[in-house]
């Protein structure tokens, strides 16, 4: 007879920081191995592809700048999403909040642009943040008031926001001078964010926000209350936290940061409002925020790496003729592995030898 052996998972009392980090790195290495198999399926050499990807992201000064430009919206959106996720409020409405923030900022840039540049940009930033925040406040209000499922409401609102921008672009805001091309007029010079060291100042804003959000989450009362609500709503209630108010404030902030991204992208990257303004950042930021374990400093690192993955991904697309979708599959594979690895961070395994059920009972 074979002696039955079962492996049982037991929750670790306290996962060590170093151990957790090494497990996560191990997961990323495994993900790269799995991705290599996928690349082999495309009959390409994985090592070649990875080297070209790194070159594509960091190979020249120009490409480094491009990677940073891609990282800026990811960093800020991830920060916004992290605040919501920390509270277990599943804000997947980043796309819509970016679009609406962009819309509000664009209104001033296009129709009330008779201002000196510093004032113009300030107004646009405030408009973008306010609009994004208010857009996010709608699902937050429903959630706080009646417990309405925010995942679906925020997502549905993405579609509504994008249709709204589409309506403007193809309708009332369409530039008559664009010769039949459905496009909104470019912003005047005073509504374009200036450059610093060759990259638009969005990077400075992003760095400042990483610090601000870090302090907010870890060292303020509100930030702590958000974390408590996320851990257990009952504990929060017992501790006397005003849950409704905290939800509304946190999500307003979350949406406000996304709205700011909309302003930055319209002003500094697109020079106008368009349906492509979000570029899927609202969804990608969910991944980066989660990979970074919702920690602001890690969000900075993960977002840069992800931007490199995107930038390198589009480079290998041209070098090897790999379709865009392949990059999405790689993203999916990496995230699957990291998600799965959390289990090994939280649990350890013990091997239990069962002699027989009765013998085990007797031994107790």
């Amino acid at each position, binding site marked *: 007879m074979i002696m039955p052996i079962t492996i049982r998972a037991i929750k670790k009392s306290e996962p060590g920081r170093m151990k957790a980090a090494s497990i996560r790195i191990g997961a990323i290495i495994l993900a790269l191995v799995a991705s290599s198999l996928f690349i082999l399926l495309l009959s390409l050499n994985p090592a070649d592809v990875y080297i070209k990807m790194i070159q594509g992201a960091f190979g020249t000064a120009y490409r480094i700048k491009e990677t940073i430009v891609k990282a800026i919206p990811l960093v800020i959106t991830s920060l916004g999403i992290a605040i919501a996720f920390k509270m277990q409020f599943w804000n997947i409405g980043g796309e819509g909040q970016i679009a609406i923030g962009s819309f509000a900022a664009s209104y001033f840039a296009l129709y009330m642009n008779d201002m000196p540049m510093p004032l113009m940009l300030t107004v646009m930033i405030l408009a973008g943040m306010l609009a994004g925040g208010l857009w996010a406040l709608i699902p937050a209000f429903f959630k706080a008031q009646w417990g*309405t*499922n925010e*995942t679906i*409401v925020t997502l549905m609102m993405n579609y509504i926001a994008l249709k709204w921008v589409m309506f403007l672009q193809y309708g009332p805001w369409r530039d008559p001078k664009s010769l039949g091309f459905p496009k909104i007029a470019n912003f005047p010079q005073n509504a374009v964010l200036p450059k610093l060291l060759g990259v638009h100042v969005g990077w400075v804003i992003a760095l400042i926000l990483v610090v601000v959000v870090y302090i907010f989450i870890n060292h303020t009362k509100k930030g702590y209350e958000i974390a408590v609500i996320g851990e257990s709503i009952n504990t929060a209630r017992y501790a006397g936290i005003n849950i409704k108010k905290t939800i509304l404030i946190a999500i307003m902030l979350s949406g406000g940061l996304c709205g700011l991204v909309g302003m930055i992208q319209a002003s500094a990257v697109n020079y106008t409002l368009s349906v492509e303004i979000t570029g899927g950042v609202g969804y990608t930021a969910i991944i980066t925020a989660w990979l970074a374990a919702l920690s602001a400093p890690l969000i900075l690192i993960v977002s840069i790496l992800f931007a490199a993955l995107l930038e390198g991904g589009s480079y290998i697309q041209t070098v090897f003729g790999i379709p865009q*979708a392949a990059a999405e*599959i790689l993203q999916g594979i990496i995230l699957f592995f990291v998600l799965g690895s959390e289990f090994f961070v939280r649990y350890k395994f013990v091997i239990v030898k069962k002699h027989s059920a009765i013998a085990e009972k007797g031994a107790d």
Partner: protein
Amino acid sequence: MEAVISFLHAAIVAGTPLLFATLGEIITERSGNLNLGVEGMMLMGAVIGFMVGLNTESTTLALLAAMIAGAGGALIFAFLTITLRANQVVSGLTLTIFGTGFADFVGQDLIGQIAPESLRLFFRPYTIPLLGDIPFIGPVLFRQDAFVYLGYAASILLGLYLYKTSTGMNLRAVGENPGAADAAGINVTLYKYLHTLLGGALCGLGGAYLSLVYVPALQEGVTAGRGWIAVALVIFAAWNPYKALFGAYLFGGLDIIGFRIQNLGIDVSQYFIDMLPYMVTITVLVVVSMRKSREKAGPKACGIPYFREER
């Protein structure tokens, strides 16, 4: 009258992919798993079903392949959330991202191709004798294609399964209170795996309806957010397969109402009409959550990973 019949007939056709996805998600959530990867699984089913249909010209194989593709996506989700207890929301979102990439990648050379003749012939409308002759109801309900009939059958069978069989009862117990179900000797892990896979297979079928019958051709992102509407429809239908039938056809109607309004010569921007299904979904969710009642609430343990050692 003719116009009303033709509208309702078309609403049922447009609602059928939603119906399959909604039924799939109902079964999944009944086992306590909130799988937000519906959109991804639908896309996987749409592409794989289309590819197999194109190459084999066999309806059975195409549908089988679509179900396997959807279940394959669900298997990734199930392994991550059931065995590795990963966060269900993030795992589901990842599945959608992965499924979208997978579908775009596998389907890149097939985009724009039309479903094969043999399949289109198989899925042409078929009048059911006697039932099809009932005034009004006949032309609306019983002069449909085989896939629509499959949808009727699927919701009735799932309803009977959930409410009239002991396995169905066990399943509901797993979704409500896995600890108690486990203590009663129900294999919780097995139930969760099987029903999450079955749910994925149904989502795959929903996707296949789009690429093989509804369009019938392969387009990029052929689901266009229907997977997400299905997730909302589950709440609308209060996790009940019979009500899912009604909800899916209602939203099918919303999906096609735009063309009809414009045909009537009413001047509304297409973009506002396109917003309708999403706005109605939000309204429905809010109303459902406002009048929260016991029977309207979902499975209690839905979204929470079950770990025997921690109960």
